[in-house]
């Protein structure tokens, strides 16, 4: 386990306990329950005692029959342990409205025509069915909120669901791999849950072998195997070999799940310091201990340059790192250290296949076209030299400066980033107007943003690969549309809690005061405050013509582009 990330996380995590209200009594009570009762407290380090974990990283969630405890497709970092009562989990799709999702629909031709001419109408008009309050059936519970689902029997008609009994866990896989929840969990009876932060849960796993074993077994059997099978360089292995590789694979996480705050502070920091804040996955010059696979999130590949580091490229989900070193050492029998550094940008999950395993199973079966070139004499490339430009070739010809910025501002996260070529943009604001026309006369982006060279990365939702905003929406109003991958906010279920708006690292989610069809501002009866809702670019998912902004740009200046790999951007800039 990586010491840097440990030392960093320990301090921050317990500064803000998950639930300050966790009394010693409750902790004691839980401690008496399974599986904690079986744990050997002596195995826990003095810095992170079991009690501390329970006190800081856990809390009690009470539920009533029909409470929706976990939604399919949500992102979340919590693991749940059933203490009392019975909950049911189903892998089947539930109707969108049950999960509080937006039902994607295209506008009709007439509506499209109408919107073009009612530009003078008041903005952000809504027809909200029923009162929207922050209290889902009266109770706000937990880091992940609940919504009440009426008459469970009807909902569970024809649903194959698995009952989860006290003492059993759920949600651990997606918490550890930070992948969307695969199942929906409903409360069958009333009862209690123990919600654990994934960090705390990791510690538990470290210290409680039996827990780790069970978790790892489950994980390796299901997701890991399939994940490895998808990796290109492992595709030529037999299932048995793959099993062996999976058994040997270690998985590590770097950075915080909720990295927004970190990012904001970092972006204010000094340029040279920024990069150093990113957790190191592999250190240039260290011993090559294994092949790294990026499971989720992004990592940047850097090389020491002066006192700092020069970014050479960034790699995302499914990419691997270090094969070249291993192959070189394997063939030349040298023991060459890491040639480059690999750093986690934001939150990164990696899998590490130890070197011997790679040498034993992977390399022999590696087809020659995939085999990396041997290293020439010690590669050392100063900036601006021909070889450094060759190094840039690895990142598809984007300039280092651009690359640095893309990664530093986490723009690589975007799959539909709005990029404006300032050399052609006449500031005519047609894009803004088109957006306003498409969205209730209120543009969902600002023609303003980070600028490097002649490129402006405007403040429009990028539909991130790693949507931090989706973490912690109490009503599941914000969700990713499976068909298009667009992240939308459901006007009907958004309660204006600002969670998404605050957690968006790019400030691309805006809270707006909504009004009724006549344009009268809606006021909350109790608080007498205007009702707010989160708005963001939805890529005109309800329009028939794709993103209006790009379509409306008369000067070919604006483009929605996928930055998760440099390919498209490079293609756009260099033809």
């Amino acid at each position, binding site marked *: 386990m990586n010491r840097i990330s440990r030392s960093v996380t320990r301090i921050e995590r317990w500064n803000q306990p998950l639930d300050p209200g966790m009394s010693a009594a409750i902790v004691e009570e839980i401690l008496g329950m399974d599986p904690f009762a079986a744990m050997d407290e002596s195995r826990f380090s003095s810095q992170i005692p079991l009690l501390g974990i329970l006190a800081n990283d856990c809390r009690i969630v009470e539920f009533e029959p029909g409470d929706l405890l976990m939604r399919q497709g949500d992102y979340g970092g919590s693991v749940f342990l059933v203490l009392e009562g019975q909950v049911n989990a189903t892998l089947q799709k539930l109707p969108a409205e049950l999960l509080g999702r937006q039902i994607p629909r295209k506008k009709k031709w007439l509506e499209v025509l109408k919107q073009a001419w009612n530009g003078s109408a008041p903005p952000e008009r809504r027809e909200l069915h029923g009162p929207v309050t922050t209290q889902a059936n009266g109770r706000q519970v937990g880091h992940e909120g609940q919504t009440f689902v009426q008459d469970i029997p009807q909902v569970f008609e024809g649903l194959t669901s698995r009952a989860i009994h006290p003492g059993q866990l759920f949600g651990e896989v997606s918490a550890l791999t930070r992948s969307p929840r695969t199942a929906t969990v409903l409360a069958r009876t009333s009862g209690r849950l123990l919600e654990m932060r994934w960090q705390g849960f990791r510690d538990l796993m470290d210290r409680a072998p039996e827990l780790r074993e069970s978790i790892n077994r489950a994980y390796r059997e299901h997701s890991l195997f399939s994940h490895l099978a998808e990796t290109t360089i492992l595709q030529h292995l037999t299932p048995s070999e793959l099993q062996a590789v999976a058994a040997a694979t270690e998985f590590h996480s770097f950075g915080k799940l909720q990295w927004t705050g970190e990012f904001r502070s970092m972006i204010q920091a000094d340029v040279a310091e920024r990069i150093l804040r990113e957790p190191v996955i592999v250190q240039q010059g260290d011993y090559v201990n294994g092949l790294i696979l990026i499971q989720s999130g992004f990592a940047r590949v850097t090389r020491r340059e002066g006192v700092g580091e020069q970014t050479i490229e960034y790699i995302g989900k499914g990419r691997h790192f270090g094969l070249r070193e291993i192959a070189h050492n394997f063939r030349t029998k040298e023991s060459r250290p890491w040639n480059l550094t690999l750093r986690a940008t934001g939150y990164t999950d990696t899998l590490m296949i130890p070197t011997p395993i790679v040498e034993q199973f992977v390399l022999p079966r590696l087809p020659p076209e995939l085999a990396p070139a041997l290293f020439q004499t010690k590669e050392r490339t100063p900036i601006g030299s021909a070889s450094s430009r060759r190094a840039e070739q690895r990142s598809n010809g984007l300039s280092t400066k651009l690359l640095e910025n893309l990664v530093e501002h986490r723009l690589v996260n975007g799959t539909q980033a709005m990029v404006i070529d300032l050399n052609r943009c006449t500031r005519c604001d047609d894009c803004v107007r088109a957006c306003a026309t498409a969205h209730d006369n209120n543009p969902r982006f600002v023609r*303003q943003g980070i600028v490097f060279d002649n490129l402006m990365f405007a403040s429009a939702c990028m539909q991130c690969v790693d949507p931090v905003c989706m973490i912690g929406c109490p009503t599941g109003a914000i969700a990713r549309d499976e068909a298009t991958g667009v992240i939308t906010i459901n006007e009907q279920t958004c309660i204006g809690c600002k969670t998404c708006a605050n957690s968006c690292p790019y400030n691309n989610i805006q809270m707006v005061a909504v009004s009724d069809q006549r344009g009268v501002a809606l006021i909350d009866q109790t608080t007498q405050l205007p009702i707010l809702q989160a708005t963001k670019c939805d890529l005109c998912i309800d329009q028939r013509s794709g993103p209006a902004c790009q*379509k409306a*740009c*008369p000067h070919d200046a604006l483009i929605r582009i996928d930055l998760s790999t440099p390919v498209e951007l490079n293609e*756009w800039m260099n033809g």
Partner: protein
Amino acid sequence: MLRTATIPRTQIRDRRWRLLLVAASSALFIAIAMRILDDNLYRSTFVSGYVLATAVFFLASFNIVKRLNFLSFLGTASIWMQLHIYVGLLSGAIFGVHVGWKFPNGQFEGLLAFLFVSTFASGVYGLIISRLLPRKLAALRTQIIFEQIPVRRGSLVAKAEAVIDQIPNRNDTLKRFYINRVAAFLMLPRSLRFFVAPSARESRQLIDDLISMDRYLSTGDRESARQLMQIIREKDDLDYHWAIQSRLKYWLFVHLALTYSLLICGALHGVLVHAFGGGLR
């Protein structure tokens, strides 16, 4: 994933030449066709007139089509912009053929010709500046939305005031300089001359004077002076933005206004030539 293609930067130039070629050749074609018609005892002016009218109405419809770009089948605004540009250039040629490359010597037709020519000219001007000026803007330190400039000005003034206020009263050199010179620069709108040909001359003058004042200033005051300089530079950028962006916005006023009177007079012209055109009934 949704992705509608936008032309790669490196291909824009090629596209320009291709379309220019197309426009030029079609202009040539029209000219020849009219000549042939004329030689065949047809009234080619009527034909070219109708072609021209069609072109003009097409060009005028650009504004409406832009509104309707939600109709997927209408294609992107950039396509229509390209059409607008090259049909516009082509219409110039058609106009030339229509009037026989000489300015008509009737009063009304003179007016009409003037309207067309000036509309055409304003269009070309707009095309040129919307290709050249963005680069100037892009070269600036800051980017700002046109409508925000006044607010930014205000905030700059506020900043400056703050800087001045924190200067201890014993030394009022900087204050006086601010009141006499800087305040006006920060608050008053720039001259028309600056609008026509923006230059950093004024701000550089101010900054130089500020620097030359260092000898009267304490180290603390110097720090404030540096801040003032920064503010002055920002203000200068703002004004530059204002000059360029307003040019980019207001040329369209002229173009549009001319377009509408051109449409009206053109329609009247059409009615007149049909009523007066000496043909057979």
